């Protein structure tokens, strides 16, 4: 018997489970193999130590502590118990539920995050529109008042009101405009407004006028049709009312000659003299021929210079309405305003001051 086999039987040898012949063979090997003898000695020592290991006493007060613990568990509410039960569910049941819940959460999160920006922007737009509308409403009222006062002053200075023709010419575009504006959705208008930055007083005024119209358009639902018309007419009047005409100074040596030359010139360009008051003349001219007229007038002047008091400003009411129409054209991409623009671009009123040198 080799060492390995003998060592495998140490337990059986110690527990006396070997047959007498097996034990004899093992003992013979051990007596002739000091290495195996030493191994058996160590094994016996290990077993001796193992058997010497005594039992430890259970902790004091184990039973009361256990009973207390069990009492606490009993007191646990049914909710807590059911919550605890979840942890005892088999993984095969828990995993699909958890996966489904996760998928639902992800879907909801994606859905909400996709929806939110739109909602927020819509809300912002709505807020901006409403705030700008209310602000513009006020400014519009102020503007209308100011304008009315200015018209009154202009009328007081100018002895004659502009020809009714001008007013009539200015009127037609309005209903069309209103229709278009009425069809507008507030956010779209707000966007159009954003793109246009006010650069001059005229633009600001135009802008405000649009704003007021938008406000009116926005309120269409709540207003009665009669009221709307009234408002529109009033607005149109204010728009068509004569503005301080372009002022020019004609320097002449001979007054009579100068006056006749001026009359001829006005007639030559298809215009007409409206009023004459001392050295102040008010003439109505077709807008198209105005630059030519201006040149000719400069030629008449002795000092060969015509002073522009107010330059570059198209004064006619109809022209003032034109930018609005054009803007609408841009905003609405409508073909309608083109016709209006050609209709209204007709006459300009010019104030000429004669200075005798």
């Amino acid at each position, binding site marked *: 018997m080799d060492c390995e086999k003998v*060592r*495998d039987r*140490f*337990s*059986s040898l110690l527990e006396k*489970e070997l047959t007498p012949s097996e034990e004899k063979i093992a003992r013979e090997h051990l007596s002739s193999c000091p290495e195996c003898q030493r191994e058996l000695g*160590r*094994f016996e*020592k*290990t*077993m001796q*130590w*193992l*058997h*010497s*290991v*005594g*039992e*430890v*006493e*259970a*902790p004091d007060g*184990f*039973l009361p*502590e*256990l*009973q207390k*613990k*069990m009492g606490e*568990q009993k007191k646990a509410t049914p909710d807590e118990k059911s919550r605890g039960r979840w942890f005892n569910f088999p993984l095969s049941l828990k995993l699909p539920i958890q996966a489904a819940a996760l998928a639902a959460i992800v879907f909801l999160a994606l859905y909400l995050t996709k929806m939110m920006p739109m909602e927020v922007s819509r809300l912002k737009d709505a807020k901006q529109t409403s705030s700008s509308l209310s602000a513009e409403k006020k400014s519009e009222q102020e503007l209308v008042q100011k304008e009315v006062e200015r018209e009154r002053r202009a009328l007081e200075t100018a002895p004659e009101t502009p020809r009714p023709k001008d007013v009539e010419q200015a009127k037609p575009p309005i209903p069309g405009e209103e229709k278009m504006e009425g069809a507008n959705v507030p956010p779209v208008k707000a966007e159009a407004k954003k793109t246009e930055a006010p650069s001059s007083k005229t633009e600001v005024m135009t802008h405000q006028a649009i704003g007021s119209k938008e406000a009116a358009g926005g309120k269409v639902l709540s207003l009665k049709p009669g009221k709307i018309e009234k408002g529109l007419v009033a607005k149109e009047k204010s728009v068509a009312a004569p503005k301080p005409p372009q002022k020019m100074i004609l320097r002449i040596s001979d007054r009579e000659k100068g006056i006749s030359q001026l009359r001829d010139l006005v007639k030559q360009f298809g215009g007409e003299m409206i009023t004459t008051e001392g050295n102040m003349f008010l003439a109505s001219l077709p807008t198209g021929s105005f630059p030519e007229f201006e040149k000719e007038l400069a030629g008449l002047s002795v000092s060969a210079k015509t002073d522009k008091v107010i330059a570059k400003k198209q004064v006619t009411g109809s022209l003032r309405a034109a930018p609005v129409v054009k803007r609408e054209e841009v905003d609405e991409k409508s073909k309608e305003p083109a016709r209006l623009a050609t209709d209204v671009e007709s006459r300009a009123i010019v104030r000429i001051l004669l200075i005798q040198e």
Partner: protein
Amino acid sequence: MKTSPKIQKEVIESCKAGDEKAFAEIVLHKQKKVFNIAYRMLGSLEEAKDLTQEVFISVFESIKDLKEEIKFDAWLTQITLNHCRNRWKYLKRRQYFNSDSLDDPIETEDGNMPKAIVDPSGNPETIYEKKMIQQFIQRALLKLKEDQRELIVLRDLQGFSYEEMGELLGLPGGTIKSKLHRARMDLKEVLERSAH
């Protein structure tokens, strides 16, 4: 087998019926046995105490399913071993035993004791030396594989017969014997290594 006093069949039946007094009697009779197996398997008094509580709670909850009252001891040992296996896995996952080496002080029933490696060839005679040996053995047991430790605890510390062990572990007697011998030889190796 170093058996704890046998519990009467009537007590077990009363406990099945939900009698708390009968349950208390069972606990008092079996707590030492359960606690010792737990302590030798886990090497921690605190863990052993906690585990013993869990075992008895399980006993109280599932005793109604026990069909043969005569097999109560084997049933209780089976529950204890199952709890020990679960707790061992749990503690191992949390690296509870990582810092534990034979050079570290180990917790005994008297608390932490200083390191004392005794030469296996020496002759421990005093009580102190005996305690040192117990500590030494406990450390070495924790170095073994879990199933090897189980075999040694059941056979050499708790005195179970091979037949009982075969039933408990679901293995034939021959396999139990050879496995147990391998476990003892490994324990001897561990002790020798740590002694030098």
